[in-house]
């Protein structure tokens, strides 16, 4: 989409601009860029902290998938809920979490979202509707359906998003969950972030249909495919699915085609994909570069504005890391806390 196309004569001004430019104020569009940078730099900061030995265990980075998390969350309110995955930092931030408390969690500190008990793979922020990342592939999908059942029973206006990867579509939980959601017309949206691989196993080597969205037909719900690296496309699909869900029309399966720039986790030798493939996605299809260029093209932001966002984000990240470093570790005597609900 170029400016020339956007200003076609016979149409009212802006009529054929991409969806988000018709839907959102310039302010919100800039905020979206801010958040995408926040996700990117958060993960770069986490990666660096890991390399420096400040974070242990492992982590799964979503660098390259930011438009997907952001686009899906654009039409959501704080009351709406999500279930997330092992690759869930982006979802958490897009839904509204504070990066300082996320860093604190990654550093294993009591000020972290899970008080140092969960770490990257279990990051959550219930206050902004994130019911949690998940260490179990597909584990969050039925939980989202349950949350949607609550929303329906309580007659709330809430919708629930379940994020999962392409690999998860081969778990039984995915199929059972989609069936029930459709059967009971629940306000849930299944968002498959298809980054081409489940660990080392490509879609072609794991999945009997070419698109995860094709599975929707089996459960009588719409299956929508979007370019997950184009923010507007993702947001538009999310809007329509949210509308359907709030109107009581039932679930939607959105397949957001994207790519992870980094290895699966910290122990990936990257033997299953080519350098060229990775390079291509990094240089030609980076979702942040793409969105930023679009914003500049449409005159919504200029270079100085972009710089200002980057700097603000860098400061937020640095402050977050400092907060995490300075925070206290849990005490051993509290080892068995939070296993059961404390009744005092």
């Amino acid at each position: 989409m170029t400016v020339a196309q956007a200003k076609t004569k016979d149409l009212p001004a802006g009529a054929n601009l991409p969806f988000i430019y018709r839907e959102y104020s310039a302010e919100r569009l800039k905020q979206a860029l801010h958040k995408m940078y926040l996700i990117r730099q958060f993960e770069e900061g986490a990666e660096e902290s890991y390399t420096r030995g400040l974070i242990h265990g492992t982590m799964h980075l979503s660098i390259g998938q930011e438009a997907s998390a952001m686009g899906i969350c654009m039409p959501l309110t704080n009351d709406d809920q999500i279930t997330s995955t092992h690759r869930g930092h982006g979802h958490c931030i897009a839904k509204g979490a504070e990066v300082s408390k996320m860093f604190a969690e990654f550093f294993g500190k009591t000020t972290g979202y899970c008080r140092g008990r969960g770490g990257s793979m279990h990051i959550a922020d219930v206050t902004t509707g994130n019911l949690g990342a998940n260490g179990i592939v597909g584990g969050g999908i039925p939980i989202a359906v349950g949350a949607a059942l609550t929303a329906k029973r309580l007659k709330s206006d809430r919708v629930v998003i379940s994020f999962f990867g392409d690999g998860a579509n081969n778990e039984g939980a995915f199929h059972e969950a989609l069936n029930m959601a459709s059967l009971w017309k629940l306000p849930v949206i299944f968002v498959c972030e298809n980054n081409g691989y489940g660990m080392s196993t490509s879609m072609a080597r794991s999945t009997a249909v070419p698109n995860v969205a094709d599975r929707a037909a089996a459960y009588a719900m719409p299956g929508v495919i979007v370019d997950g690296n184009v923010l507007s496309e993702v947001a538009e699909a999310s809007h329509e699915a949210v509308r359907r869900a709030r109107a009581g029309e039932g679930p939607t399966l959105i397949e957001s085609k994207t790519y992870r720039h980094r290895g699966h986790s910290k122990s990936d030798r990257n033997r299953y994909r080519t350098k060229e493939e990775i390079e291509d996605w990094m240089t030609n299809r980076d979702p942040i570069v793409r969105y930023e260029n679009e914003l500049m093209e449409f005159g919504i932001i200029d270079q100085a504005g972009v710089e200002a966002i980057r700097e603000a984000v860098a400061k937020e990240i640095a402050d977050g890391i400092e907060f995490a470093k300075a925070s206290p570790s849990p005490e051993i005597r509290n080892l068995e806390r939070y296993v059961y609900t404390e009744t005092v």
Partner: protein
Amino acid sequence: MDQAVRELSYAQAIQEAMAIAMETDERVFLMGEDIGVYGGAFQVTGDLVERFGADRVIDTPISELGGAGVAVGAAVTGLRPIFEFQFSDFATLAMEQIVNQAAKMRYMLGGAVSVPVVMRFPAGSGTGAAAQHSQSLEAWLGHVPGLKVIQPSTPYDAKGMLLAAVADPDPVMIFEHKLLYKTKGPVPEGYYTVPIGKAAIRREGRDLTIVATSIMVHKALDAAKTLEAEGIDVEVVDLRTIRPMDKETVIESVKKTSRLLCVYEGVKTLGVGAEVSAMIAESEAFDFLDAPIVRLGGAETPIPYNPELEKATVPQVPDILAAARSLATGSR
């Protein structure tokens, strides 16, 4: 002819066992998630796909229930699958096939079939992977008649017991502690087996018996060295198999030392140590006890992410030392 003995890591020993099994028996093949070009999450299958091809080292989709079921179906119809779970925690997704199908099929059919499936489970804490990737669930499967459940603690046993498992006509579940994968030990070349159902006395002693499993065997041996200097002579029994359990070896050891300490990583309550203790309490060794039995097991909590909390969750050498000292001097 003597077989040459090399130092191999626990992971290499397992890989060698699988290679030998595939070389010597066409029916043997491997299934699991990312076990092909990726080499397995812990590099146990490594480059086996290059040697044996993708139809004998099969990458499954992320489908534990289905994958385990396919392995069971292949086993009951004449093949010898070795199924790798990426983490033992994911056994929970496949419980149906393991517990209701694999374990019971022979029985339900009155002995008409057998289910020679081998399942491998990378288990245990210590990697910072938190609550859903660090559990020790062996006691769960140990509770199911029809299964055999083993926990090799050395590279030698890892190879020999895996080959015994492949040769076994019944389902064998192998729990491999992730922190053992890189530990090294002597492993003979070629084919040999180590029997399932037989414990090993890793160190003889007079004053106190420690019955340990998996990585805890090494911690117990460490502790035993320190205790020796203090004049406490510890016998360390490596249980190796939790179902069927080698009662005789444990009973004989307790009769000799009159004191029993059980050390295991799984949650203490209703775990392996509970079974060992009850077994001793029911046996003739009970009359020989000079002090109450002591169990050291995992804390009553999921495995935490914070590394200090994580360490505190499972028995460590100082915990074993403290327990052994007070047990050695305690009385009934």
